[in-house]
């Protein structure tokens, strides 16, 4: 498959981050088209396009908007630019280079749900991207796309940046809402869902940067245009970010149904240093690991779910045959242990315990019991955590154990050291 630049348009159009260049290339046409329609019509078009959220869960965007109650004001839109999932780096690239497309998308989404305020929740580290956004917002405002009574439609919108400060959990939508409101960034109970009770208990939609950046095209060219790529249930393109042991790491915007094999071996040039392929993680670190046998799986949400993993954020991490899988697991679990918010016991205690066991295993002090216990502790976390973070931590371990368990036992010392159980 050929790359299609619906989002990474800066790769074809230099300086598209400048307002004039963006407009000269059809910029704000999608918004213009949207403003000529009723909000409900916009929602319908997005529903027809089949656009699914690119933040991780792949929930149909138009359907999510449809949950927003019509008669409660104010409403809010939050653009999720927390991009913290290891292996994911697409949103930053869009914003640094093609910021207007996001701003246009935000205005379209806000119009569709009739939100009067939008917050862009961006990672604390994204200093240049934030500059680009400030500039793009100012330009859009200067040209009448933001502020009071936009283009005489009576619709008003302000966009503000809200800078995150280093907590992966704040990518989770309800934790993000708490974070914006000035509370600890811990997830909230659902229901109520944000669409009904979000920021300050008002209806709020949270969408990912990539999701929103798709809107200008869809509104400008129509749902059918968008559906020319991808599959019936997973239309459009996706930005796949390839990292790890490949020759050409980077971002590849491709129809959603590109296979892992094509992405890794054709676009990304195959395994580096002439080594062999061992495994890949298809959608950011939280997506359970897959192996050789899954290479021909198309990278859509549904196909990946069918093989026990997930589409997630589209970050494909490739692992060569010289990689120690216990070490890999240790690195992943260390991340969750560091980022666990502490709210619920299975995640708070479980990730601590997992990491402790993995530390023993990779440092050569582990026993077979430790490997077994690691599996048992992960099982004990299963389906008990408050939010998906804890579930990911056990999921990645379970997946590695499933495919590479034997390798983990190789780390075990022959003579088990008895560590007295306590309590």
């Amino acid at each position: 498959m050929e790359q299609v630049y619906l989002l990474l348009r800066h790769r074809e159009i230099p300086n598209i981050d400048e307002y004039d260049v963006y407009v000269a290339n059809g910029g704000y046409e999608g918004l213009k088209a949207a403003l000529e329609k009723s909000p409900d019509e916009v929602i319908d078009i997005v529903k027809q396009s089949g656009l699914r959220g690119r933040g991780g869960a792949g929930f149909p965007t138009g359907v999510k908007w449809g949950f927003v109650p019509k008669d409660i004001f104010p409403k809010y839109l939050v653009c999720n630019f927390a991009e913290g999932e290891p292996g994911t780096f697409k949103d930053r690239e869009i914003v640094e280079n093609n910021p207007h497309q996001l701003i246009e998308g935000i205005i379209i989404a806000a119009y569709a749900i009739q939100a009067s305020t939008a917050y862009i929740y961006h990672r604390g580290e994204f200093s240049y991207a934030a500059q680009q956004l400030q500039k793009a917002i100012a330009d859009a405002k200067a040209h009448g796309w933001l502020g009071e009574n936009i283009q005489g439609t009576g619709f008003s919108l302000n966009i503000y940046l809200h800078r995150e400060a280093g907590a992966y959990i704040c990518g989770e939508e309800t934790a993000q809402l708490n974070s914006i409101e000035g509370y600890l960034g811990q997830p909230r109970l659902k229901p109520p869902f944000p669409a009904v009770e979000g920021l300050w208990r008002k209806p709020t939609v949270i969408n990912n940067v990539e999701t929103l950046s798709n809107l200008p095209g869809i509104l400008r060219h129509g749902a059918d245009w968008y559906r020319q790529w991808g599959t019936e249930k997973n239309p459009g393109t996706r930005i796949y970010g390839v990292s790890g042991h490949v020759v050409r790491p980077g971002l590849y915007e491709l129809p959603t149904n590109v296979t892992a094999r094509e992405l890794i071996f054709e676009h990304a040039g195959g395994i580096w240093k002439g080594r062999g392929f061992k495994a890949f993680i298809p959608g950011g670190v939280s997506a359970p690991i897959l192996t050789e046998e899954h290479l021909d799986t198309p990278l859509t949400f549904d196909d990946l779910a069918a093989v026990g993993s997930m589409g997630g954020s589209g970050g494909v991490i490739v692992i060569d045959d010289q990689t120690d899988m216990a070490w890999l697991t240790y690195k992943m679990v260390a991340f969750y242990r560091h980022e666990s918010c502490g709210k619920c016991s299975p995640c708070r205690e479980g990730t601590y315990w997992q990491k402790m066991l993995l530390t023993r295993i990779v440092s050569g002090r582990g026993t077979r019991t430790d490997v077994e216990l690691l599996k048992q502790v992960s099982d004990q976390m299963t389906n008990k955590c408050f939010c998906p973070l804890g579930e990911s931590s056990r999921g990645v371990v379970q997946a590695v154990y499933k495919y590479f368990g034997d390798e983990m036992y190789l780390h075990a010392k022959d003579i088990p050291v008895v560590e007295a159980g306590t309590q």
Partner: protein
Amino acid sequence: MSEQNLVTIYIDGQPVQAPAGTPIVEAAKAAGIEIPVFCHHSKLTPVGMCRMCLVRVGTPARTRTGELELDENGNPVIRWFPRLMTGCTTPVSEGMHVEVNIPEVQDAWRGTLEFLLTSHPLDCPVCDKGGECPLQDLTFAYGPDLSRFYKPYKLHFEKPIPLSELIWLDRERCIYCSRCIRFCDEIANDPVLDFADRGRGQHIVSVSEIPFDSYFSGNTTDICPVGALTTEDFRFKARVWELNNVPSICPHCPVGCNIVIGERAGEIKRIMPRQNEWVNEIWICDKGRFGHHFVSAEDRLTTPLIKGEDGQFRDVTWGEALEYVANRLSAVIAADGPSAVGGIAGGRAANEDLYLFVKFFRDVLGSPNIDHRVAWPVGTGIEQAVAEVGLASESNLNGLGKGTTILMVGTDVNEAQPVTYLRVRKARRNGASVIVAQARRVKEHAEATHTLDYRVGGEAHAVVALLKAVLARVDEPFGAYKKLSGKDEVLVALEALSQDDLLAQAGSTADAVEAAADAIATAEHVVVMIGREALVGAGVNAPTLVDALVALLTATGKAGQPNSGLMALWPHNNTQGANDMGVLPHLLPGYEPADAIGADIDAMLNGTAGLKAMYIMAADPVRDRPGSRAVLENLEFLVVQDIFLTETAQLADVVLPAAAFAERDGTYTSYERRVQRMDEALQPPGDAMPDWWILAQLAERFDAAWPLYTLADDVMQEIAKQVKIYKKMTYDNLEGEPIEWSTTAARHHIYTGTATLNSWFGRQWEVAAEARRPKFALRWHELQPVPTAEGLRAVPQTRLYDNGTLIRRSTLLDQRRARPEVVLSAVDAEPLGVQSGDLVRLARNGVQVEAPARIDKGVPPGIVIVPVDVDGTEWNALTGGGLESPVVKIEKAV
């Protein structure tokens, strides 16, 4: 909850009924089925974070058209949720199935407990929670036998650190349920606790300016489901199972919180709340919890004392002391007649004591000179007003919500009657309107749906303006009570007053008054609370202020209706009882008008009553009203009956040692007129005896034909016979069947914490307005213009931790005891060149004190706030001991 929204769910097949929307764990608990919880607490909003309460849940499947899907046997098909659900956050719905006793669920419980114990120190043998610890108990019931976690990897924190000098935090024991944080946020509105850091490093912190800045901090130790939070007071003092738990009533304020005295070896080891959902639910304030040390103070009086010629006291026997008192009093009466004797009985004494005090004075000595209002203004008519239109019996202040309007006039409940704040907050959260009428900012403003600001001195005008605005909204004012006399006079008097004038005098806005009037006129229930500050501030117009409140409640037809009526926020725990028992010069027990009207407390203490002898029980006028010292010194004979050698007692000829609240049976009557029982937990020190016993012995010396009272109960039986309003108040009647409140269960400490179960709920007596055809006379006193004085008015403010006789003995509270200070507005501070922290001098009538200034946004120009009873008598002399709001001179001290 009405019957209609009851739904039936099936827990392990057993049908259980509960109101729709109840969390599964609560529904199960009510049916006697235990689902273990940690973060869930019946009084707090669910968070579902500890993951202890996981259960399997299914709901009846429905077809697309909404019909129930049935299986081949005609039973509903159940759709089980794919994963276990938290029972604390899943509401019950009709036909829901819940599985508890299945391996999957039991495994989950075991797993969660294993997780929670991974870093737990397991120091149960030295943990104060041991024996009443949900973590310990649930681990025994559902936990694993052995942990698979390796001990050396346990995460360690520095062993307990103080969150404040009152509360210790052991971060190793903490299981992060956030109950304490949520209590502070939701219940107490003192958001001074939070989690810091995240993940496994997370821990509770408080960095408020004053450590753990809350008057309710102790409650967090009760609801903490582990031993992470403990009190300095109880730490390492006893094992909980060794305690003798005695029901009692808090002696500090008129809320009348139900408490339990944890006694061991003749000492109070701790004070805990006793659950009473009508009074304090499961809370008490820190004054109630930590303010008990006066009982065991070294300087308690232990023997009767007689002052010799040399001015020194000597110990005597009861026989000698009583004989001496009888002889001396008789001598005074013989020489100058009974009206030369006066009596003061404080509102701290129990009803039994107060009743016998009145009986002793009126029947035995023949003197009507009795009063209790050392700390309360006289001549306002509030005592009578409460008996007429007081909060109706069978009212439940904790059940208030939508449809209720609470009017708070001149109150500062967080400082003076703290648990009242929790009740008002709860009512507001449940939808009640709260009108805060105050001259300055107080904590209850946080709960205000309406504010009615006035200037000090304008209280009565503001309330009269409000009354007028309410009347304009009532179709047939006073229509509910045909027999009330005086209502036409009131209407005529009101007619003559111009609303604009009233507003101008009050310094209130028409908008505020109109909005408040709306809230009152449209309410189903109206509760009015009036604080001492309002009566003192209103000064000469205080009687009109009271008249207007009575008129407000009667005009709207609310008086006598359940959950409506007037509450006076009295200064002492049993001021209400002192009124009821007739410790007043003009009223007999039960508010019967007296034929013989005696001198009131002002006349007695300023000397105009011309007394020769006085008998003072449980009161310290020299401290509270320093001006009275000379009068008392000049008496021929003074008897003081108290638990300490107070400043007043030091002037006495005879001092009689009394038992403290924990050392006797008795009853107190709270500000909602709830008569409540307490039990004896300890022996009084030395020869100290209960007040009622002393009075009975003394009466015997006068050959009074009193029955033999062997127990306080005997006195109460007589009260029930003699005082109509108390006819139901026998000890038996004050006891109820133990109630399993909706929030409790067999092992209720798991759900609500360690507050103790209760069966002594007390009882409210009926006010006049509750009669089928209420008849009493409305009164109306002409309004006087608000005096405009040059200078600043000193507004006395009660502080929770003052330097009073009782609370002073809890040295634990020294650090947070209020110190003298002068709180003023920036506007007034500026011309004086005063900044926060500068020393200022206050002067009035030759008295002069110095204290640091504090500039506060909440103080309007024209007044300075001065705390009451935080220093010696000089401070009280200047500030009027809380009974005046004098104009003072203020200057910067250099």
